[in-house]
């Protein structure tokens, strides 16, 4: 797997590169800002990019802008956005145009276990990755007539994993249950929440997140 890393902080960038290299990922380019990142992507055509959300010049949302640009210009390149913020708005902004091959995770999460490598692999395989913290927050929001309350404990667990972007296979592996059971749970959840079930796992991330964020 070939990757380009973009982060304006040299310390973090080198650390990420070291983590990736030790995980067997071939880091073909490093960038400190969005423009360099785009140039690297054009030249190296990597499988994935790891992009910090805040980069020069304004240090606000350059990473998101760059991620959207890469996804529309190079559909074969997945993008994993790293953020200091737990913002569902940013996650939704990233996945609402094309949910495939995009991920949004908290920066410090990459240092525990194999989260970075796992997330990268999923993004490279055109899956969607949403940070569990965001999903947890959204699930615990206070809402009027909350249909989420009508879900069983297991169903809520499945819903969270759906929102994190996992496929049915991924969910079944995580929960040690069969694919068929996961399918049944998902169908049940979508019915209870009043959502149209989309067979495609990426699209259902968007509809679940949108539902969870609605007031």
């Amino acid at each position, binding site marked *: 797997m070939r990757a380009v890393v973009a982060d304006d902080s040299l*310390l973090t960038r080198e*650390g990420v590169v070291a983590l990736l290299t030790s995980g067997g990922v071939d880091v073909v380019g490093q960038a400190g800002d969005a423009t360099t990142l785009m140039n690297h992507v054009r030249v190296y055509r990597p499988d994935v990019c790891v992009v910090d959300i805040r980069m020069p*010049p*304004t240090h606000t*949302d350059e990473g998101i802008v760059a991620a959207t640009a890469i996804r529309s210009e190079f559909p074969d390149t997945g993008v994993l956005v790293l953020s200091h913020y*737990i913002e*569902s708005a*940013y996650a939704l902004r990233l996945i609402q145009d094309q949910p495939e091959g995009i991920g949004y995770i908290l920066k410090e999460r990459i240092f525990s276990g194999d989260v970075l490598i796992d997330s990268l692999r999923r993004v490279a395989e055109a899956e969607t990755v949403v940070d569990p913290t965001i999903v947890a927050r959204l699930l*615990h929001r*206070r809402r009027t007539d909350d249909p989420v309350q009508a879900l069983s404990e297991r169903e809520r667990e499945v819903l969270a994993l759906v929102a994190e972007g996992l496929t049915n296979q991924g969910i079944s592996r995580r929960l040690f249950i069969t694919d068929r059971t996961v399918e049944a749970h998902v169908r049940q959840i979508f019915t209870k929440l009043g959502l149209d079930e989309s067979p495609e796992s990426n699209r259902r991330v968007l509809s679940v997140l949108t539902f969870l964020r609605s007031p």
Partner: protein
Amino acid sequence: MGAAVGLGARRRAASIHAVQIVRCAAALAVVAGLAWLTMRMVAASHGFSESGDSTLSEVALHGTVALLASVGVIHRLARPANRYGWLLVLIAVFLLVTEWAIPGATAAGSLSAAAFSVGLLLAVAVPVATTWAVLAFPSGRVERLRDRYLLAAGALVFVGALGLVPALFFDPQAQGCLDCPINLMLFRGDPELAAALSRTAMGAALVWATVTMLELLLGLARMSPASRRARGAVWSIGVLYLVAASAQLAVSLDRGFVGGLTMDKGLWWAQLAGLAALALAVAFSLLRSRAMRRSVTGLVVDLHREAAAGGMREALAAWLHDPSLLVAYPVDGAYRDVHLETVDVTPRPGRATSRLVNDGDEIAVLVHRPGLLDNPDAVREVVTAARLGLDNERLRAEGLAQVRALAGSRVRIIEAGDRERRRLERDLHDGAQQRLVGLLLGLRLLRTTSGENHAEVDDAEAEIQATVDDLRELANGLCPNVLLTEGFAVACAALSETMDVRVVDAPDRRFPAVVETTAYLLVAKAAAAGPTTVYAAFDGDALRVRADVAQAGVGLAGLEDRVNALGGHIEVLRVDNGKRVELELPLAAPAVSREVIAADRGPQ
């Protein structure tokens, strides 16, 4: 700029007022003396005089002289900087002199020859002096060069050709007037030549009078309405007078000399009436401007009482009969009206400007129809009458400008504070947070390379992770990044993910940064107090936010000042199970905010 005349000149005039009075008294005394002399001359030879054939005509002549002289003197005193009054006194003197070329001039005693000769010389000087008085009305100056040439030509024809040249060949004694005083100008007695020359001169005088009448009529037709209101009467009287004078010249053409017993008495009366009318018209113009000044001064008093901004424009527009008139005050190095709108004071076709100056200080500039204030008197009139009111409005405009500047600086201070919060958040993110993340990374790599598990390292990692979380909360509290990039509605939604906030409605659009921050601060402070429900709406002018907090006390310290500075309104109401905070923030007041957004987001 038009004429710049002000009260400074008027004050200086006040100090020489005494001299002015003495001069005017002297002028009146001279006219009275000459009138007395004229009466004696006429009494000595009734038959030869034009006024002497009846008491009525004599009274009329002297009455007209007195009228001209007194209106002239009054004008002189009322308008110290304007010499127009002297012209009327001159006409009065010339009118008396027309009576002197008679045998009765002997009544002047030792001066009889001189008086008789002056009478011959200036026998028909009145029409030229009258034309002068018409063309110079009301400023006292003849501005146009061709009018000056016209007057010079008139003087040459009426005094030179018609007065002096025939007199050179007129020997009164040889003509049979043995009682007459000597003609001091006599060169050679030749009655035939004198009559021929006189006839030629009369022809020239008729041509001149016709040209002048045409000139006046043309001027009347071309005058702007404002000018016509000011000068129309005097010019019309001038035309009528010249018609009578020309008619007299025409009927005298056969005789070879003007005046005398056989002349048409009706024309003489007509000319006298014309001159009296001229004096009355000038007197009326003085009275009218005085009345107008009074009415504007009265308005100034009213304005002071009612304190209505913009009243001076209305008053001056009504006074000067120009509804489109604009009053501009010098405020902050620009010309502005009472509402601080910039006024274009560059003169252009169809619009003239006049500076109103008081003691060298510009108090206002009027933008008006051309021809309205093209003489210094009119400008001075406005300054005298409206100075208080104009000063009042100018000070009001300056005060308003200061208040606006102050309001602007309050908003800028708040915006600077917001910028500082964002900068702090950024520094925290790019500094401490990055370093801690780097540290976490180092520990992770250490663990990977050593391949062993240490409980101490795990504790350190957990500690650092907690610190990173704390810092994130702190930075988010300073200024959430999502507020900056996504706006108020999204920032509120984000708040609802971590706190007990329910956003029922929020406009999904961007507002000026300072407005978004203020509205967000309200929601954040309410959420900090207790479970909060937020309703926000935008009505095109203002963002309205209602936050219902299920808690008795809501701390909104600092928010009131912020809202006031932005020209908004905040109110805390007690509701059934807690407090309701209502916030209204206009978008118009902080005009600088759009630039702030651009500056914060930087070039993209």
